[in-house]
């Protein structure tokens, strides 16, 4: 079994969720502080 697709899937998932979480938190903070 080729291990690299599993390694890449784990890193990609963590990357997408982390970036999404940071972007969402940042946008929500900017919007709330501008109000």
């Amino acid at each position, binding site marked *: 079994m080729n291990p690299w697709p*599993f390694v890449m899937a784990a890193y990609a998932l963590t990357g997408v969720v982390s970036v999404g979480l940071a972007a969402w938190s940042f946008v929500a903070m900017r919007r709330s502080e501008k109000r």
Partner: protein
Amino acid sequence: MASLHTFANPARFLKLARPLTPPLFWAGVLLIAYGVWGGLARTPPDYLQGETVRILYIHVPTAWLGMAGWSGIAVSSLTFLVWRHPLAMIAARAIALPGAAFAALCLATGSIWGRPTWGTWWQWDGRLTSMLLLFFVYLGFMALTRADDDRGGDGRIPAIYGIAGSVLLPIIRYSVVWWNTLHQGQSIGLTSSKIDATILWPLWFTLSGFTCFFAAIVLMRMRTILARTKAEARMRRMAHVVDVAV
């Protein structure tokens, strides 16, 4: 204790949180990037697990943050119940979403790691099941804080839940000792490790990087909640002025 009370003042907190958020965030990003580069390109494969061992560098930080997040909620809840600092409950609410996200990532990366290593995506063993329970406890906390807000509650019920949920933390920690599990036992300690240093070093970068990243997200979310609370109070004052004028 005097410093805790000083820090619990929202204005003083914001004075500290605003300049602290960007350096924490970018330090986290840089440390994660260096750790990921080291983990993917600079370390040898494990003699037993081969290349799949590289999932370690993201799986361990997500597990650590899933559990550390709930520790933060428990300490904040206790602080809120004892000293009635509203900022403590704001901190608990701010931690809940990133904590749940990292607990979910821990389960997902563990499952992806399990398939080539154990031959299965999931096993109902002590460690995996207790971590899944922690994820559901996070969801329960988020639902409870929202319901408490909607009914104009004082935050006591979510705070009690926050403390009660911490009972899961030692169960997760010692699940590999108490039960015969598929998950490996503890291999990394504060002073020693069963993992060779040539494989272990990027983990310290991803661990510290994700911790800084998590702290920056919590600060952003605390600032969001504080700004919303301030805006709602202003709206209520304006509505009161209009009522009096009419």
